């Protein structure tokens, strides 16, 4: 195949513009590096492209989901579970759902801004319970980066001194909504810890960005850049150095290497003309998302690396986990006929419940946290659906119309996000028969939960139902059975997949060293969720960002010292 090679040799090529790629670009450009960044999607600018303040009636679709917008048409993330021309496949009996962002900033345009640090125990789980593996680094290694991250990006929260839930450098948290206080009453009665949430949304102006204006629509993209996304916070300072070139519509095909086995750049398909190009770089940083990075490495085969690049351990694609997740909603009679007021607040809950129990007294390892929702949200597609769950019968006419008014806002939701332990049956590999529309071999997923996750799900269900009952309410769904995995969402559904290029001190069992540098290729680094050794219930973005900052500073320092 003819590849259009560009003569310039950049200091660094970064694949991906999301959390990891954006952070690496910022740190490296500010350190003086000349960086080229490949992004598979288009440019997107929240200041003009966001549907932040749209009303449902601004569209005939009323905010309903579309294939290209699975979280609703006003959502700020381009991409989804199914992308035209970019399939993935499932091994027999497996169901893995893979959400991909395809836009500047990737999935930082999607997430709930829940920004939790991993705690000291999370880095040494094998030592504590014998399952999975320890990380080659500990909390003390990453703490300074979490601190810098908090100051750079901005995060609200409260100092709690909880075990294994480290406090950060917090902006003041917003006051809870009234129904959140009602939830907290129930949590207190059940001795479940319930504290201020930790979200990367500004409650005070920071580093030139204004404070939140409390429209509650972070998911649509913030036109004032008051929450975190890579294009709002990380890419502008990188671009301001004049050192960053972003190539959009660039679908990476493989990492190129030379006879010495070093990375020399990345080849990609330009989606606009469908031709192959190559950029050259002295250092390659992969931040394409845990699974895309694994795919890229596994597709980068050569005589020297027949099983894919940086894969002498065979660990690329293995160790794949997502967060466990499920949700339960409840009808709370006390919230009926609510007082009209604006409780949009910051997007997402103002309170959350960190893990609060001792596994020694439970039938499953590890833990989960609880995310809250409910109240008087902006009406959207599906609003007040299945009214028979509230009034028992459905009905029609004037009394039904009054019922809709009565029950609007009288709902709370609890969602669990827990730790899945890596298992040998959950991984991704190259499908030997299927390519995408650019001719790039696609991933095939294997996915399976163990009893650890299923029993944790049962505990979530029981806890959420108990909370709803304690509030005097009724769960809106029946308790799922063991055969239904107690309502566990498919692996991948929580969009916290990590671990496919894990770090470790032993090159025989890990892909990267403690600096997220490939054991096999010293000028190749990974800066997304791939390096995670385990997947604490802490929602991975904050740790991806902190690790990427640490990795990029290591690269800059090594270049300065001439060791790279």
């Amino acid at each position, binding site marked *: 195949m003819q590849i259009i090679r560009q003569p310039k040799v950049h200091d660094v090529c970064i694949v991906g513009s999301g959390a990891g790629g954006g952070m690496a670009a910022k740190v490296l450009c500010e350190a003086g590096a000349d960086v080229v960044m490949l992004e598979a999607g288009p440019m997107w600018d929240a200041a003009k492209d*966001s549907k932040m303040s749209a009303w449902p009636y601004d569209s*005939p679709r009323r905010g309903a989901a579309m294939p290209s917008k699975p979280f609703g048409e006003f959502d700020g993330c381009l991409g989804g579970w199914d992308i035209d021309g970019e399939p993935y496949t499932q091994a027999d009996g497996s169901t893995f759902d893979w959400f991909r962002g395809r836009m500047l900033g990737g999935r930082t345009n999607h997430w709930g801004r829940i920004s939790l640090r991993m705690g000291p125990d999370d880095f040494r789980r094998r030592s504590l319970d014998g399952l999975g593996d320890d990380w080659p680094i500990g909390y003390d290694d990453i703490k300074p980066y979490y601190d810098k991250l908090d100051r750079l990006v901005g995060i609200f929260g409260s100092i709690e001194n909880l075990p294994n839930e480290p406090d950060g450098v917090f902006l003041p948290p917003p006051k809870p*909504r009234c129904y959140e206080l009602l939830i907290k009453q129930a949590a207190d009665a059940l001795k479940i810890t319930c504290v201020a949430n930790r979200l990367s949304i500004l409650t005070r102006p920071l580093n030139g960005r204004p404070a939140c204006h409390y429209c509650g629509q972070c998911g649509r993209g913030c036109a004032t850049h008051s929450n975190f996304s890579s294009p709002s916070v990380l890419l502008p300072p990188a671009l301001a150095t004049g050192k960053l070139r972003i190539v959009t519509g660039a679908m990476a095909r493989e990492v190129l290497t030379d006879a010495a086995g070093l990375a020399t750049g990345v080849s990609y398909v330009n989606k606009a003309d469908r031709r192959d190009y190559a950029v050259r770089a002295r250092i390659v940083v992969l931040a394409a998302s845990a699974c895309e990075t694994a795919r890229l490495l596994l597709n980068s085969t050569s005589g020297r690396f027949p099983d894919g690049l940086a894969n002498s351990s065979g660990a690329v694609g293995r160790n794949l986990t997502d967060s466990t997740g499920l949700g339960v909603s409840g009808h709370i009679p006390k919230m009926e006929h609510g007082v*009209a*007021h604006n409780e949009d607040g910051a997007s997402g809950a103002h309170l959350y419940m960190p893990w609060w129990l001792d596994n020694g007294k439970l039938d499953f390892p590890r833990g989960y946290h609880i995310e809250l929702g409910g109240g008087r949200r*902006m*009406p959207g*597609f599906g609003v007040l659906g299945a009214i028979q769950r509230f009034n*028992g019968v459905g009905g029609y006419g004037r009394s039904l119309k009054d019922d809709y008014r009565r029950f609007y806002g009288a709902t709370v939701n609890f969602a669990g996000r827990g730790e899945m332990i890596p298992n040998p049956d959950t991984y991704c590999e190259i499908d030997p028969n299927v390519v995408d529309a650019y001719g790039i071999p696609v991933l095939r997923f294997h996915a399976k939960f163990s009893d650890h996750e299923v029993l944790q799900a049962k505990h979530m269900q029981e806890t959420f139902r108990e909370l709803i009952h304690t509030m005097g309410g009724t769960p809106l769904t029946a308790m799922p059975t063991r055969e239904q995995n107690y309502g566990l969402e498919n692996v991948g559904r929580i969009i916290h997949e990590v671990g496919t290029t894990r770090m470790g001190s032993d090159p025989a069992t890990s892909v990267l060293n403690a600096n997220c540098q490939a054991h096999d290729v010293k000028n190749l680094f990974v800066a997304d969720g791939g390096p995670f050794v385990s997947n604490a219930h802490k929602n991975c973005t904050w740790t991806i960002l902190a690790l990427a900052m640490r990795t990029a500073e290591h690269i800059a320092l090594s270049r300065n010292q001439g060791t790279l």
Partner: protein
Amino acid sequence: MRIAGCGMRNKNGTRMSRRQALALLTAGPVAAMTWTSAEAEQAHEHAAQARAQAQPSAVYKRRFFTAHEYATVGVLVDLIIPRDERSGSATEAGVPEFMDFMMIDQPRRQVAMRGGLALLDKLSQDRCGKRFVSATDRERRALLDEIAYTSNPDPGLSHAIAFFSSFRDLTATGFFTSKMGVADLHYVGNVFVDEWTGCPDAALKKLGVTY
């Protein structure tokens, strides 16, 4: 290489103005660097104005329903959500147009909708010898009294009850996402809030909670 500190600085290391930053970023993502609260509010208003101007004014043209189906839909949605003292009816809120649009936008709904309306006519014929639109108000209500309640245990009506539940859900979405419906629910958000001060006393008192 040099590891610089955070923040938006130009090559001389001095803090950049928003104008400088924007000029630099025109080829890439345009991010505002030094927004004030007033500027942010202004941006919010501009976005709202741009949206208002983009409102389609043309009369909606039916694309999925037949004329007979559309007439049936109009009658049915107003039986579900009628006009009352607080707000108008489902047809006044544009629910039939919304439903027609959704049938095209989400084609997976088409068969159940078309079949459900046919079933409604069949049941009406059986009971009063007329299709639903031709029945009297009393006859229509008599039929709805059978199929609008999920508590009705009659196994012979399970399909009609399932159709009606789904139709009621779509009616509710159509109505309560309209401008009229949003106002009816007293949803008062989606506005610029300079400082979040929590929920008002009346709302706290109603739930028996305090700050």
